[in-house]
């Protein structure tokens, strides 16, 4: 009986780990599909749309100094409602009708991994 319990527990742990990694892969895919157009595949803010007449500098997500100035809430609002919602450029689109809340939360987590920072608490 204990053996069965251990096996079940192990299966559960592996199952959760697999689900977690699947989700990580998906958020990377979401980032590369939607965000990389301007923020770049590596998140450094140099996507193909950033030509010489692009009127703003897309956020470099790998810069912990800049990214630490933002709360997770700030990032979420910017993604959901667009740049103007956080007093930034209209070139940052509102993604709230395209992405689900879960996808946006996952993107916030992904961006935090890119900056390796926790951000302003608030």
């Amino acid at each position, binding site marked *: 009986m204990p053996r069965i319990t251990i096996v079940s527990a192990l299966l559960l742990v592996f199952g959760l780990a697999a689900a977690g990694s699947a989700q990580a892969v998906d958020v990377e*895919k*979401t980032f*590369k*599909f*939607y965000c*990389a*157009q*301007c923020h770049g*595949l590596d998140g450094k803010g140099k*996507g*193909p*749309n*950033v*030509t010489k*007449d*692009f009127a703003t500098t897309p956020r470099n997500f790998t810069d912990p100094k800049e990214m630490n100035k933002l709360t997770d809430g700030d990032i979420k609002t910017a993604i959901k409602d*667009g*740049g103007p919602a956080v007093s930034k450029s*209209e*070139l*940052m*689109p*509102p*993604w*709230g*009708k*395209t992405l689900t809340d879960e996808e946006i939360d996952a993107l916030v987590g992904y961006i935090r991994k890119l900056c390796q920072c926790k951000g302003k608490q608030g």
Partner: protein
Amino acid sequence: MRLASTVSLAAAMLLVASAGQADPAAGEKLFTGKNCNGCHYTQGPAQEKTIDDQLAKKGPELWYAGSKFQKAWLKGWLADPKPIRPLKYNSLTEKNPGNHPKLSAADAGAVTDYLMTLTTPEVKKGAAGKGKKLKGKLVFMKKMPCKGCHQYPKRKKVLGGLSGPSLVGASKRLNPDWIYAYMMKPKVFKPVKMMPVFTGILNEVDVKNVTTFIGKFK
């Protein structure tokens, strides 16, 4: 002599009539024969459900081509294709190689006749109405991020981002009723796409205005 002239005239008239006649079936045969459907699917409704589905496509779907494009433009483009997207389809790193197959004028005409039969009732004639160009300009240039991803003409320059299809020449290429329908119900046409959904962000009047503005791009 008189009979001969009449017969010749009739034959000539018949020839002219048949030359101008649309032959979608011949166009469809060419489309399949040249493996155009290797890159473009023509059977609606939209099939993409995931990002992977979209990324697996080699070219844009054409199941509503007859509602989207203007016939004269399509015929000209198929005979002399020039890149519409600055970047390769579905790529953020590679430039559009500009290697779309080129058709003879006769084949381009036939394929156009076929593609123009691919319509959808989702695009309603006259739906775009007459918007206000200047208000549309405000949406395109100031309120929304359109220019971040789409090239557009400004005086004699081409400005704008590269990840979306260029809107230069939209006045000749696109049916304004399609632009309107696509903005209002994007998921009907492209369920998974890199462009944000603006339904619920822009209202019907905004969309009519921006359609009018885009519809005048030379």
